[in-house]
């Protein structure tokens, strides 16, 4: 990333961080619009880590998102963490870092358990289908989880906590920035080198001393961790965690499209893609409510036709030649 781009990024993040102080901003429509862009950008980064940098096309992001959301809801409503403290401080689970962290950890543990057999035996399309199957299995398990998971209805967390969208906005923005910085640091480390090596040529990577299975499982788990934390954040927004809402395929498909449009395997691509695609989806929903999936689909087709490498690479390429 060039110095100018770094300066622009810092200014934009600072401006976004100060936005809630602007009178009226919190109640404006674009405030929740921005919150969702941050949330999708986090999910897009999660997918980009395993698929864009790691080359392992996962179609199971929604499973990890849902696992994070459910973990948060279950810990909260069952009061598994804070015991008697919960009575004194009824808001203790609301944006509790430990609860959110556990959402990510549960998701990444699931990724390790599933990733070890899938990634050692399946490659390419077959791995993708395996992760898709995993998502369906998890969903069925939660539908049939009895009182523990709330079955088909799901779990309702105490919505009385909610009085403003400000904390959601800041936490989402913070997580988006933290995710991008963490991935940036990761890709500059020896681990990032191994990840790209595995993506480019697995056989050559292992012939040069890289434990390819370990690298792939770690990337899958890291991606799941990010998705799990995002799911946890979503619980604080939606309060009702159900199999049809948090295990919805959209939580995998939209971040995937956003990353591809923005530029797979680039740091800012997922963020840019989330911004552009979410704006398109939302605008289509408002302007032509009956046809909005058509507009969204057309946008993706056009993007693939004219920007097959994604927004980031197309612009970077033009800047270099021109």
């Amino acid at each position: 990333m060039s110095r100018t781009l770094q300066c622009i990024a810092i200014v934009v993040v600072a401006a976004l961080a100060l936005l809630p102080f602007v009178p009226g901003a919190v109640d404006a429509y674009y405030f929740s619009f921005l919150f969702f862009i941050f949330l999708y950008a986090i999910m897009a980064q999660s997918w980009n880590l395993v698929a864009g940098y790691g080359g392992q096309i996962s179609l199971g992001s929604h499973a990890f998102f849902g696992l994070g959301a459910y973990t948060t809801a279950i810990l909260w409503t069952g009061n598994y963490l804070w015991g008697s403290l919960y009575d004194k401080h009824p808001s203790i689970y609301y944006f509790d870092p430990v609860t959110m962290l556990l959402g990510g950890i549960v998701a990444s543990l699931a990724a390790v358990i599933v990733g070890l057999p899938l990634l050692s035996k399946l490659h390419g399309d077959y791995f993708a289908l395996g992760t898709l199957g995993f998502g369906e299995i998890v969903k069925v398990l939660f539908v049939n989880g009895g009182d523990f998971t709330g079955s088909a209805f799901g779990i309702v967390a105490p919505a009385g906590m909610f009085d403003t969208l400000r904390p959601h906005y800041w936490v989402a923005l913070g997580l988006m920035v933290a995710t991008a910085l963490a991935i940036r640091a990761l890709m500059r480390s020896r681990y990032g080198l191994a990840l790209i090596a595995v993506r480019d040529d697995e056989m050559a990577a292992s012939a040069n001393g890289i434990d390819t299975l370990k690298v792939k499982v770690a990337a899958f788990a890291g991606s799941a961790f990010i998705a799990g934390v995002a799911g946890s954040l979503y619980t604080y927004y939606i309060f009702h965690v159900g199999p049809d809402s948090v295990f919805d395929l959209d939580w995998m498909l939209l971040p995937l499209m956003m990353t591809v449009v923005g530029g797979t395997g680039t740091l800012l691509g997922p963020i840019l893609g989330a911004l552009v695609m979410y704006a398109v989806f939302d605008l289509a929903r408002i302007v032509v409510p009956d046809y909005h999936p058509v507009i969204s689909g057309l946008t993706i087709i056009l993007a693939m036709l004219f920007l097959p490498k994604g927004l980031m690479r197309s612009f970077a390429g033009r800047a270099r030649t021109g």
Partner: protein
Amino acid sequence: MQPDETLLRLEAVQKRFGGLVVLNNVDIAVGPNELIGLIGPNGAGKSTLFNVITAIYAPTQGRVLFRGKDITGVAPHRISRLGIARTFQLVRTFLTMTAFENVMVGAVYGAGGRVKYATETANAALELVGLTAQGDMRTAHMTLSDRRMLEIARAVASDPALLLLDEPMAGLNPTEIQRMVDVIRRVRTERGLSILWVEHKVDAIMKVCSRVIVLDHGEKIADGTPREVTQNRKVIEAYLGEPAA
């Protein structure tokens, strides 16, 4: 009691794919700082032999010993860390990386495996094969001959004791072949490596190697100096067919 100087030893290695015997009872010993040519007609089992040594295939029977230790069936990345590096017949470089990053993979994860000196190691390896100027070039934009050189640099950067070269001259023109011969010689003399070199360009092998092994239909039919090998009746028959009368 014999102090084992042998670096690599294959003991009665057999590899079968179903009913097809690709390697049959092959014994090979590679000593320190040897440059050994491995030749044989198409389908003789040369690449399979490399894949057995680097554990991409497990042998059906027999053992592979490296520095006296049994490494049969050890994971491929462990083989690399023990000190066996290789190149591939169809070049396998990391195409989205720069040349320097490619070599860094060997330096960071190979047998040397120390991040601290990795940059120096990688630069020295690029210098050895004459690719210093192309360090920042994307591998996808490099020529075939440069990519073959890069593979050797990456292998050398992993600080191996044994280097396996799988047809490094395939697809190269005469000038590039001469450059490759020079590089292989330099790698051996400057790094003190042992090299096992599979090649179809038999004349190059005969000129450069002090010892040549010939495989045919999965069996070792000759093992000796280039002169001995070229006069071996079995070798002549393998390449030219049996005499008419």
